[in-house]
């Protein structure tokens, strides 16, 4: 299966001198299309920094990010229009659903479709809400949705442009165990049925069985903790990991 994203030698350092913190220490990572990957680790270990680097939000100072085989960031410099790449090929899901407060559930998805130049935004939004079983709440504003509904809408929005990579930062932190499990299963379903690569930062150990690969971060270094791909015969061919610093 093709590589959705490849990180090579990512290094990011905050501060200087004695206050220097190495957030990413020569991180190498490859995530294949259709793989569901968990990123574990204590607070401050560099998980969010890695998400920001892979999400083309805050590039690492050194190293390279290749997207679908094409180098897009190298040594902190953008080699292409990153915003355009984000809106067309990346989907984000956050700890809090982070829906746009003044748009309804359906409009939150429609606007993502617009950014991705999808012409049938409204129909697509409704299909995605159907898919995630929240269609009945399409006209509700975020504040009128429950935490689980918000997270479903956020996932629907992340899927709006058929992204090749979905990055989720602690998406179940605000949910109870039942809803947490449901969200994790959704990621698996999305990866399985739509072929998107999914990277989930999580502290939630209750649903780790849904992931193909478990990575751990500590002090900016990444290591493969567990390969469960074999336990998921129904998934698309999963992931590969080259090395960690």
């Amino acid at each position: 299966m093709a590589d959705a994203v490849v990180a090579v030698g990512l290094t990011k350092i905050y501060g200087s001198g004695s206050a220097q913190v190495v957030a990413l220490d020569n991180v190498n990572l490859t995530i294949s299309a259709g793989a569901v990957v968990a990123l574990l680790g204590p607070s401050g270990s560099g998980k969010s920094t890695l998400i920001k680097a892979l999400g083309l939000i805050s590039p690492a100072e050194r190293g390279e990010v290749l997207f679908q085989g094409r180098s897009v960031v190298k040594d902190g410099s953008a080699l292409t229009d990153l915003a355009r790449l984000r809106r067309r090929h990346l989907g984000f899901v956050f700890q809090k659903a982070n829906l746009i407060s003044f748009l309804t559930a359906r409009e939150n998805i429609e606007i993502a479709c617009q950014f991705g130049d999808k012409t049938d935004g409204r129909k697509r939004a409704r299909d995605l809400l159907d898919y995630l079983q929240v269609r009945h709440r399409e006209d509700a504003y975020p504040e009128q949705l429950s935490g689980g509904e918000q997270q479903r809408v956020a996932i629907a929005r992340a899927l709006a442009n058929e992204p090749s990579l979905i990055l989720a930062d602690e998406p179940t932190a605000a949910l109870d165990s039942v809803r947490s499990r449901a969200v994790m299963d959704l990621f698996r379903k999305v990866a399985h049925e739509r072929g998107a690569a999914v990277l989930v930062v999580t502290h939630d150990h209750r649903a780790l069985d849904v992931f193909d690969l478990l990575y751990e971060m500590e002090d900016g270094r990444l290591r493969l903790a567990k390969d469960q791909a074999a336990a998921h015969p129904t998934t698309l061919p999963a992931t590969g990991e080259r090395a960690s610093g």
Partner: protein
Amino acid sequence: MNLAVRDVGRHLARFLGTAGGVGLLLSVVIAMQGIYAGMVDDATILTRAMSADFWIVQRDTRGPFAEASRLDPSIEQRAAAVPGVRRARPYTYQLIQRQRDGDVLRLALIGLGWPGDTGESLPLVKGRRLAQPHGEIIVDASLMLDVGKTLELAGETYTIVGLTKNALTSGGESVAFLSVTDSHLISYDQPPEATLLERERVVERLRKTDLGRAQPNLEDLAKDPRWRPPALSSPPLAAVLVEVDPQRAMEVRATIKHWGDVAIYSQAEEETLLLEGVVQRARMQIGLFTAILTLTAIAIITMVIYNLTLEKTHDLAILKLMGAPRWRLAGLVLQQAWLLGAIGYTLAYAIGQLFFPHFPRRVVITDTIALVAPIATMIVVTLASILGLNHVMRIDPALALEG
């Protein structure tokens, strides 16, 4: 999908409240500009209404509106005799204050030279010009008195025969027009006791003179209320208004300028004297206040738009993270600013239409103000958006990850 409209729709009451505040602010700014324009207009409207080419006034004075000007009535005939003069009219001006129905009535009385001047140059909105030399008066509509009503002045009854609009002095007092004779009657009106005492003083003075002693019957004449000593001069005029043959204007001016007892000003000069003298301080004060108020309004509107943007920082960060094109984000801020400006100005306009006519001083929305105010409002809100746009461009999409 228009993000600006969706955001406004979601927070409609708050947005309308903000627009209402901006509207009130703009209405104050426009009112101040209108008051300034009104002050300038009021200062010159009287001179323009008289349709004179030249104003002849007492020598070394600046005309009847700036200071007291006393001209001998013979100046009217002298001016009329100057080659090139088409018409010379007497003109008197005085401020009076009386009580009427328990209210203070302040009036500027302008005497017109009956029968040559019956008020034909006045912009009447109702009624007619003066048709007789005594007992008729034309007043400004701001007095709230209709045609047919009467005014009691100096013991005489004056019937209102016509109404003007916006005939006000630079101080904002309503102006009334009547014949010069009537204006003198009002000016020199004395209570009976004062008249009696004056006659007694004349008799006393006569008794001390050789003439009085030699002609005892003069004393009887002095006591007769119908008699007026021939040596006493007629009441003075404030000015003589001159209309000239346009080709001979310079010649007329040069001729009259050489008279030792008068000064002559063109219509434009008379207006300049008014603006630079009578209302200069008030004009400067209100002009400066208007400028400060305008700057304050710009600062407040800038902060309002900036705060509107700040409130959306998180939503904007999410939109950025989603890869929203910059023009969409800039459009969100700009369109809301324009909407704010448009609603604010419309409200200010409505407030102006409803309330400005009831202000004690005239608020004149000139064509320039009417044209410039909405354009300036839109320019101001656009410029005010720069701060908000700068904020939008600097928002880190990573903010969205922080929940």
